[in-house]
């Protein structure tokens, strides 16, 4: 997955890439759309936190894509 950020449990995400593709959406904006704090978005982008299924769907919905377009399991 190009432009992806990985975490230690094998789940990688493209949140940062998708944010920039959406007119450089800010972390604050994404946090507001997904009802989390900006620190959680920072942790997700850094691959330091794996979201719940619920949050994963909310993030995908915020970008208007499917979950598999945002997250990928690599193991």
């Amino acid at each position, binding site marked *: 997955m190009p432009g992806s950020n990985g975490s230690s449990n094998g789940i990688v995400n493209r949140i940062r890439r998708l944010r920039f593709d959406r007119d450089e959406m800010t972390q604050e904006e994404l946090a507001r759309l997904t*009802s989390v*704090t900006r*620190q959680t978005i920072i*942790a997700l982008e*850094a691959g*330091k*936190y794996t979201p719940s299924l*619920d*949050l994963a769907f909310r993030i995908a919905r915020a970008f208007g894509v499917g979950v598999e377009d945002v997250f990928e399991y690599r193991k």
Partner: protein
Amino acid sequence: MTVLQKMAWFILGVCLLTVVAVIACYRITGSPARAAGGMGVLGLCGAQPLIGLRRKRRGEITMDERDHAIWQKAGKIAFGTLWVAVVAVVTAAAVANEKAAISVRALSDLLFCAMWLIMAVWSLSILWMCRSQSAR
């Protein structure tokens, strides 16, 4: 800084203030029993839910799923530490004291110290986990 971090800093501040109060009480009264009255400062921890109230009223997110996960994990670390410490102190007291008699004073001091320890470890764990997860 998230609301969770603010809460942790607040608790840590109260814990430090408690130590200062106990030392000050001991200096003033010269009695270890009366100095334990300084532990009453720990009661300020009850004001912790007030943190983030303004953000909540504005309709902002105060705690999300990551904060709750950190909160629970820190709680487990604090409880584990407390368990080990209390068992160690009680075992040491039982070994050192053949009659196995603990005074009411020592019991209340043990309770206060346990409360102090759990709050201090809890807040330090929260701050440590928040810091390790937010590395840019």
